[in-house]
């Protein structure tokens, strides 16, 4: 279960930013998780809640924006949601598809 080590990375970054901004407490951490990552949002939320107990982050909510797997057709430029890994453009039926969303694993912002 690597959600724990991902949580550790989130907490390290958040603590660094709290130091920089002089924040003593925190309300929210916003992150972005793509559909094609191997990260389970519910597990991540559980790990986060568990590991911030007794720290400066205690009480902060983890706000997860889930990003769907999205493609763009190289032929006609159409952007669309990829479901079932089918990679055919719904507009022109082209098959040369560039993936433009779904692999994100980003820390977006903090609120305190």
């Amino acid at each position: 279960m690597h959600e724990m080590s991902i949580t550790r990375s989130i907490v390290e970054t958040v603590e660094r930013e709290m130091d920089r901004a002089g924040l003593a407490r925190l309300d929210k951490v916003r992150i972005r998780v793509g559909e094609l990552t191997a990260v389970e949002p519910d597990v991540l939320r559980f790990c986060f809640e568990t590991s911030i107990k007794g720290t400066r982050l205690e009480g902060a909510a983890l706000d997860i924006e889930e990003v769907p797997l999205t493609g763009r057709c190289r032929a006609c430029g159409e952007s669309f949601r990829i479901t079932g890994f089918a990679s055919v453009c719904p507009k022109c039926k082209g098959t040369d598809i560039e993936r433009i969303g779904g692999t994100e694993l980003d820390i977006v912002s903090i609120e305190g």
Partner: protein
Amino acid sequence: MHEILIEEKILARNDEIAARNRNALKERGIYSINIVSAPGAGKTSLIERMAGELKNMGLRFAVVEGDLEGDFDSKRIERHGVPALQITTGRACHLDAHQISHALPWVFGQDSIELLVIENVGNMVCPAEYDLGEDIMVTVMSTTEGDDKPLKYPAIFSASGALVINKTDLAPHTDFDMNRARENALKVNPYLKIFETSCRTGSGVGAWATYLAGLVKDGKKK
């Protein structure tokens, strides 16, 4: 209350170290692969078979082995005359770039190697997110696992450059459909190079080793 924008990758620190690993390997002309699979798919057996094939091609390589416990795998590999370093991850389910950075001095101490093979912890989920600094990730799956595996673990198949489908000798005894497996893998990642092997009989390992030797050679030109 105000919002402070951060906008960086959660694993930015790992990615930084991975980039340093990649540069250090490149400077010494060493190509590297990161082999991932479910436990028991045949990663170690594949490396053992590769030892013979690559030796015949005159290509020397070293292996870094990731396991939760023990040094059984590195011992298996050393028996084939290939230098192997065991990293035990304790309870961690994957290798990370930091662990590899500590293994690099050992790698650079090996005589005239052109290829580093990293055998990751047997796990099809967690290693997908951790760049180690390798040139390509290679997924191994086996015919006893089911041909729908790519659809169940898309992240790892999507992060890989090559797929080795192992245990072809057992396929007749299972419901595994090779064409469907290939279709599923290419659906998730149209750029995958797919190889079929049996590490028990040695069938198909030559084609995989030849392809890999080609990558090592091309890597040197860059």
